């Protein structure tokens, strides 16, 4: 968490296997460029995401967290992302309320064919997090 000119944010991205992860793959195969700051964690569905994952990532020092799933209506498990949508909305609001910068925790829908959208999303998130600086608030130093 050095606050130097060369600081690069560390972003954890939880991607659902069927849409967003495939979208990320497509971005790679298509040689679309985005910052090297993202660590991707593949989950079967966005519904697998427990808000505790997001907060744990922040506690462990992630500067930003992204959760991405299929577009509503396209979930491989029919309604996983619809159930998750409610949890995500609440999580985002609660974290912003207590004072975590909204740019740090973001949610999106990216489909398997949207390689370009995925790269654009990554660059967007990286820029947002660069703007708000290194995470300090929930971080626990060991």
């Amino acid at each position, binding site marked *: 968490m050095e606050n130097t000119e060369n600081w690069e944010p560390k972003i954890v991205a939880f991607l659902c296997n069927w849409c967003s992860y495939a979208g990320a793959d497509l971005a790679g195969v298509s040689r679309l460029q985005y910052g090297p700051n993202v660590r991707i964690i593949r989950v079967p569905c966005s519904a697998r995401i427990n808000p*505790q994952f997001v907060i744990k990532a922040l506690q462990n020092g992630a500067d930003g967290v992204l959760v991405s799933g299929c577009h509503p209506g396209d979930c491989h498990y029919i309604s996983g992302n619809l159930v998750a949508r409610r949890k995500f909305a609440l999580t985002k609001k609660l974290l912003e309320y207590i004072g975590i910068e909204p740019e740090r925790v973001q*949610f999106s829908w990216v489909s398997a064919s949207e390689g370009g959208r995925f790269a654009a999303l990554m660059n967007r998130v990286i820029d947002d997090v660069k703007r708000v600086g290194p995470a300090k608030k929930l*971080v626990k130093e060991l």
Partner: protein
Amino acid sequence: MDSKAVGNEIQKIAGELFRDDKIDVFIGFERATVPLKSRPCFIGKDEDGRIENLVWDSFCTNNLAAFLQKYFENEPNRRKKREKPYPRIGVSVKGCDTRSVVALVKERQVIRENVVLVGIPCQGMIDRRKVQEKVGTAEIVSHRETDDGTLEITTTDGKTRTFKKEEIMQSACIDCRYPMPEGTDFLLEGEAKEPGDGGYGQIEAFEKKPLEERWAYFEKEMSKCIRCNACRQACPTCWCKECFADHTDLKWIGVGNHISDAMIFQIIRVFHQAGRCVECDACYNACPMGIDLRFLTKKIVKDVDELFQYVPDFDVESTPPLATFSEQDKDTFITDPEKG
């Protein structure tokens, strides 16, 4: 009815329920050993003599629904073969207690048929912290409540002071929209206080503050936390057999009072209350350090209400908001890289 009459009526009903063998345990309130407090009173089948201890006043703040879940352990999934049937429990309940019972019934932690709810129209409870604040460091040795809504307290120097109930009412009660219990088996006669408006205005005002100010407040409050878990234990809807905070393999949060752990404990605890918190203030009252938990609990209630049009009220049939979804749920929180 004045509070003495309410107390007598509760005693009468409890007595009848025992006589007609309708219950095995009655949970109400009795005088406490310290001023400005009434404490939960348990009466078993062979303890008729204790029925006359039952009282009702503005210090019956505990949410008695917190005691119910332990009687129905092994519900709903691991219904062990039991030698004896589940006990039948009579409880005197306010509006908030009733809604907690409803939430527990929905989650199948309490069997509705085994609970006899004695509903009491609530006139609002007094916050002993507010009274102490008004008196400063002087010690309060006794109190006397009058039926015209005033509280007279005596301090060690012999001085008495009188307060109007509105000045010292619990903030939860001022905002409460459901002071009149519904769906109870008995409902005492009388009027409940005027319902409040839910108090969302306070949250809206807080939301308008700058981000860093909100963080500073949250940090200041959570720095007081000693991780005693009183908030979790007092809450009627915190019933998990193993709390996420106690997991050791793998660990979500540490057990010490590092501020990051204290903050995350509260964030997640409040998040787990989404759609279930009835704002009874049991957590706030139990906290030995006086942390303002209300600004968090009320936020989750407001968000669930605004996003999903759901409030944990008296309706046993409604589906909890996080157990379902709607195709009309908004995507406003989503980041769309193609838009601004």
